[in-house]
C-alpha cells in the first residue's frame, strides 16, 4: 500500500473515510423549522400589516427551504442538501395540487348543500321568479342527452375497436387509428359547433334541440369508447382465440362468444368512465340545446316553433343561474352551487363505479 503522505489520492480517500459517518439532521428538524418559519412569516407580515394566508404560507415555504438548505449544507454537505430540497419540492408539488382540489370540494359541498333538497330534484324553474324551484328539468335533460349520446357512441365505438383489433389491417386501420386520435383532441366547443352546423343545415337555421346536444356529446364520447375498448380487447390473449378456432368456431362467433365476454368488465368500465367525462360538458350544449325553464322530454327539434325545441342540461343550468341571476341573487347562486354539487357527485360516483366494475369483474387473464 502506498503511504498516504506521498499519494494525494490516498489522502483524499482518507478524508472521505472520515466522512463516511457524516453529519445528519435529526428527523424532527424539518417540521420544527417549518413551524418556526410559519411563525416568523406570520409575525413579519403582521408587523408590516400585510397578513394574508397565501402570503404567509408562501413566505414560510421560502424561508423554510432557505433555512433547510443552509442547515443541511452546513451539517450534511451540499449534495445531501440539494437532495433534501428536491425532496421537499417534490412533496410540495403534490400538496400544491391537493390544495385546490380540497378547496374546490369544500366550496362545492358547503355552498351546494344549501339547496340540496327534495324540491330541487322534483320541480323545475317554470314560473319561478325568485327563490324555490329546482333543476328537475335540467337533470332530466342531462340524462336524456347523455343517454342518447351513449346509445349512439357505444355501438360505433365498440365495433370500431373490434375492427381495429380483430379485422383491421393496412391503410384503413392506420387511417382510422389516426382519426380516432384526432377526434380525441377535438375541443368540446368545436364538437358543439359541428352539431349546430349539421342540424342547422339539415333542419333549419338556429335550430336548438336535445338531439343536437347528444350529437355533439357523441363526437366527444366515441373516441373514448374506442380507445378504452380497444385497449381492453387487445388484452384478451390470443391463445383463447386460437382455442376457439381450434374447436371450429367461426371468427365472428369467437369474437361474440369468447373475446367480448372475456373483456366485458373492462368495456363496461370504459363506457362508464366515458359517460363520466361527457356528463359535465357545458360548452357544446350551450351552443346546441338552448335554454328553458320548463321540462322538455322530447329531444327532437320539432316540438317548438321554428325548429327550436330547447332543452336544458344541468351544466348549462349551472352556468346561467350563476352568470344571469335575477332577484334575489342568492337564490340563483344557491341553485347554481347545488347543480355543481350534483354534477360532482354524479361524476365521482360514475368514476367509482367504473373502477369498481373493472376490478370486481375483471377476468383472470394470464398475461
Amino acid at each position, binding site marked *: *500500500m502506498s503511504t498516504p503522505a506521498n499519494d494525494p*489520492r*490516498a489522502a483524499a*480517500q482518507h478524508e*472521505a*473515510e472520515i*466522512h*463516511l*459517518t*457524516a*453529519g*445528519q439532521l435529526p428527523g424532527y428538524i424539518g417540521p420544527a423549522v417549518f413551524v418556526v418559519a410559519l411563525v416568523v412569516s406570520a409575525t413579519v407580515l403582521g408587523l408590516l400589516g400585510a397578513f394574508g394566508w397565501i402570503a404567509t404560507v408562501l413566505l414560510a415555504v421560502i424561508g423554510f427551504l432557505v433555512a433547510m438548505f443552509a442547515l443541511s449544507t452546513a451539517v*450534511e454537505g451540499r*449534495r*445531501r442538501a440539494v437532495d433534501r430540497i428536491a425532496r421537499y419540492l417534490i412533496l410540495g408539488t403534490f400538496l400544491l395540487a391537493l390544495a385546490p382540489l380540497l378547496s374546490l370540494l369544500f366550496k362545492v359541498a358547503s355552498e351546494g348543500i344549501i339547496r340540496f333538497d327534495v324540491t330541487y330534484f322534483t320541480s323545475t324553474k317554470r314560473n319561478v321568479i325568485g327563490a324555490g324551484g329546482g333543476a328537475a328539468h335540467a337533470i332530466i335533460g342531462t340524462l336524456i342527452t347523455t343517454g342518447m349520446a351513449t346509445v349512439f357512441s357505444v355501438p360505433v365505438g365498440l365495433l370500431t375497436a373490434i375492427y381495429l383489433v380483430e379485422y383491421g389491417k393496412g391503410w384503413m386501420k392506420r387511417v382510422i387509428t389516426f382519426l380516432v386520435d384526432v377526434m380525441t383532441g377535438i375541443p368540446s366547443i368545436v364538437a358543439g359547433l359541428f352539431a349546430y352546423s349539421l342540424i342547422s343545415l339539415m333542419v333549419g337555421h338556429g335550430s336548438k334541440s336535445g338531439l343536437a346536444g347528444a350529437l355533439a356529446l357523441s363526437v366527444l364520447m366515441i373516441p373514448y369508447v374506442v380507445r378504452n375498448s380497444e385497449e381492453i380487447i387487445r388484452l384478451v390473449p390470443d391463445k383463447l382465440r386460437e382455442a376457439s378456432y381450434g374447436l371450429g368456431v367461426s371468427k365472428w362467433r369467437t369474437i361474440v362468444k369468447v373475446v367480448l365476454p372475456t373483456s366485458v368488465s373492462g368495456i363496461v368500465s370504459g363506457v362508464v368512465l366515458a359517460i363520466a367525462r361527457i356528463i359535465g360538458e357545458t360548452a357544446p350544449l350551450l351552443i346546441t340545446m338552448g335554454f328553458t325553464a320548463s321540462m322538455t322530454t322530447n329531444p327532437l327539434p320539432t316540438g317548438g316553433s321554428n325548429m327550436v325545441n330547447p332543452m336544458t342540461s344541468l351544466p348549462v343550468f349551472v352556468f346561467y343561474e350563476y352568470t344571469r341571476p335575477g332577484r334575489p341573487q342568492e337564490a340563483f347562486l344557491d341553485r347554481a352551487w347545488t347543480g355543481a354539487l350534483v354534477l360532482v357527485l354524479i361524476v365521482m360516483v360514475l368514476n367509482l363505479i367504473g373502477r369498481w366494475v373493472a376490478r370486481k369483474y375483471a377476468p383472470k387473464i394470464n398475461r
Partner: protein
Amino acid sequence: MAKRMELKNLNIFYGDFKAVENVSMVIEPRSVTAFIGPSGCGKSTVLRSLDRMLELTSGARVEGQVLLDEQDIYAPRVDPVRVRQQIGMVFQQPNPFPTMSIRDNVLAGIQLNSRRMPKARKDEIVERSLKGANLWNEVKDRLNAPGNGLSGGQQQRLCIARAIAIQPEVLLMDEPCSALDPVSTLAVEDLIHELKENYTVVIVTHNMQQASRVSDKTGFFNIKGTGTPGRLIEFDATEKIFTNPSEQDTERYITGQFG
C-alpha cells in the same frame, strides 16, 4: 485504496422472511473473493448488503455488522450514498446509461462530486479508467458515441470502467459475465485478475469454473430447503474449496451433484 471487509453475524430479512442467517467472513484487500452456491442461497443478497444497495428493495433489513476496515457501514449516521462511493458495484446485466456517451458514462460518478473539474483532468480519468477496464483501445476513437452502441462484453467493461473511475475501495460484481458470450467472459475474467492489484474484489458467480479461475478465496452458500435461510457453509482458499473441501455439501455442489 483497497480495504478489508469483515462481515460479523450478518442476518438479512425480506419482511418477516429470513433470507440469510449468521454469515461471518473476512474479505482480504487486494484479493478476489468469490461467492458460489445454488440459486436462492442468498449469495447475491449478501453481496448487495455490502454496499447498502439491498435496502433499495422494500422490506429488506440487515442485522449484524459489515466493517469496511474498522468502520461499520450499518452504524447509525452512516450515509449509504457515501458507502456506495467507496464500494462500487457491477451488475449482472451491463447497464450503461443509454442517454450518455461513452465518456460521460465513465464520468457519471465523478460528476456527482466534483462538477467543476478541469477538462484535462477529466480526460485523464476517462483514459485511466478505460485502460483499467481494458476497453481504451477499442473505444478511444469514439468516446462521444453512445454507450449502448457497444457490444455486450464492451458494455460490461464500460460499466467496470465507470465503477473504477471513482476509485472505490472495494468492487462488488454480481454475476458480471452471466449475460456475456464466452469471448467477452474471458476478457472480463482477465480484467478481474488485473483489478485485484488495486482493488478488493468480491464476485458472485453461478459458474464454478469461473470462481476457480479468478478467485483467491471462495465462499460456498447453501440453503437446507425452500423457505429456510441461506447460510455460509464453507469459506476458504479457492484451491482448498475445489480440491479438498471440508464440508460434504460443498463437495457435492462442486462435483455437480446438485445446484
